[in-house]
């Protein structure tokens, strides 16, 4: 069996600050990432996603445990790891004083792309990401969205087998985001392993083969989308649009301790947990409160699972 692209065992990262108790940003994580997969790291702010990515990309050293990228230990052989990865960090990272084309060229040179190939590759990437009209402009003259696009474009200049993307879609318009996501799918199909963090759950639903939900530095859940949805057995999303919102219905729903409740005009979006199979009775009772224009009942979305899992403390099944 081939070595996984990423292998993490009992990983701990503790931050100590003078005069303050130490913080366990990563608290005993163990997981593997298969080669050629798109692996999504999900979690609320401060869950440890970026810290984990920093360790895997050799930017930070773990306090304890082991992390390997394509068999190379991130602590003992960081340079071997760096030869196999390319990284999009969370902050915009571009050479502001260089042109778009020079940004791509400089990045490629660092990754050992032969000089004679750089121009052709750059042109392909510029065309793919609709950056060609800006190729000769200095990045400092571009908007934030374009700067992010340049940053993403760099990872397509090289063929590192592992790519780390920390909230890659920040500042991207929907059309470009779709284009990048398609490109990432193609890269993964070609054998590249993509590890991404995001707060946007639809990206994970659309892209990821394998998902790890982190909470307070620990694994809250792990698996593909369907497996995670099994975790939410008994969780239902109900959408009801009334002709007129019945009085007191918000209090009535709140009394049922919903996972999520949103009321917009005369439409109610509510996520309820019901393990006893009585969800239709609940729906019937709600529908009887007024004239219903639209009614939908569905299984839980990834967002519901995420909210459910990360609001609780400690490790969940």
């Amino acid at each position, binding site marked *: 069996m081939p070595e996984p692209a990423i292998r993490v065992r009992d990983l701990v990262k503790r931050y100590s600050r003078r005069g303050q108790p130490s913080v366990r940003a990563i608290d005993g994580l163990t997981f593997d990432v298969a080669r050629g997969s798109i692996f999504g790291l999900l979690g609320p702010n401060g869950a440890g996603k970026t810290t984990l990515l920093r360790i895997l990309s050799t930017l930070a050293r773990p306090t304890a445990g082991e992390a390997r990228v394509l068999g190379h230990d991130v602590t003992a052989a960081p340079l071997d790891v760096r030869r196999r990865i390319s990284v999009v*960090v969370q902050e915009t990272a*571009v050479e502001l004083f260089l042109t778009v084309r020079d940004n791509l060229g*400089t990045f490629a040179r660092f990754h050992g792309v032969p000089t004679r190939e750089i121009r052709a590759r750059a042109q392909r990437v510029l065309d793919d990401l609709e950056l060609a009209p800006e190729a000769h402009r200095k990045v400092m003259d571009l908007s934030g969205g374009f700067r992010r696009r340049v940053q993403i474009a760099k990872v397509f200049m090289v063929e590192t087998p592992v790519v*780390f993307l920390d909230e890659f879609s920040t500042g991207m318009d929907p059309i470009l985001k779709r284009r990048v996501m398609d490109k990432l799918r193609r890269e993964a199909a070609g054998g590249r392993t993509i590890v991404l963090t995001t707060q946007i759950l639809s990206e994970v639903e659309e892209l990821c083969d394998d998902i790890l939900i982190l909470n307070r530095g620990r694994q809250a859940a792990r698996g593909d989308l369907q497996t995670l949805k099994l975790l939410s057995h008994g969780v239902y999303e109900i959408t009801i649009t009334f002709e007129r919102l019945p009085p007191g219905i918000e209090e009535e729903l709140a009394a049922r301790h919903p996972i999520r409740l949103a009321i917009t005009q005369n439409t109610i979006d509510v996520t309820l947990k019901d393990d006893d199979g009585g969800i239709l009775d609940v729906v019937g009772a709600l529908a009887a409160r007024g004239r219903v224009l639209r009614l939908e009942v569905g299984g839980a979305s990834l967002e519901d699972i995420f909210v459910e899992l990360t609001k609780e403390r400690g490790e969940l099944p």
Partner: protein
Amino acid sequence: MSALSAVMYREGKIRATNALFIFWDVVYPLGYLLVFGVGMNKALAFTGLSVDYDAFFLAGVLGMAGFGIASNTAWSFFMDRDNGIFYEMLTYPISRAEYLVGKVLFNVAIGLVQAFVTVVLARVALGVPLRPAGFPLLAAAVVVGTAGWFFFYAIFALSIRRNDAFNTVTSIFYFVFLFASSMFYPIDPLPAAFRDVALANPITWHVDVMRFATIGQGDPQRIALEAAGFVVFTTISFGGALHVLQREGN
């Protein structure tokens, strides 16, 4: 392309986008030589010197140039941080040592060009009597000097997160290192305490070596000791900068 040449290429690309900055690095020490040096030479009678002040000050100008180029190069870490590229670069397939050395190499080349222009100007415009046999030593002193001061400054540029705080530190260093040294005047006639500080100052070692290389002034044994001292200073500074860089993010 090797890791070192990739870092050097990047540094060159960025520096080339601001030719004025390179021009300033090369030219401002010449201003010191032609304005301050000539003025001092004419206005004051330096009876204690066996050579013209122009000739004496030449090594000081060369030392000042290397010191300035080194501090500007170290300051560029802040620019890299502001651009966000700093942490991304730490994930590139280069070692931290290659990052440091590559960053200074291009600027060492500027230092050599600056030294060449300064020496030619001193000879042609001011008639400073030069010692061609000392030129290889001068080149070595420019290279090691620029690198040594860069590594020294890098320790602070990498440790201090605020640009304004770093600027304060460099201003203090400029004042202490440059004036408590043999850069502007001979240190032997100075009060004992002042002289002791100057003797312990790596700028003095660096400038004395270059003074010996350019005009042959100085006791060869003491110069050898100062040269060795500066190499040790550079090695320790490199180790310190590397340590701070390796600690980044931890």
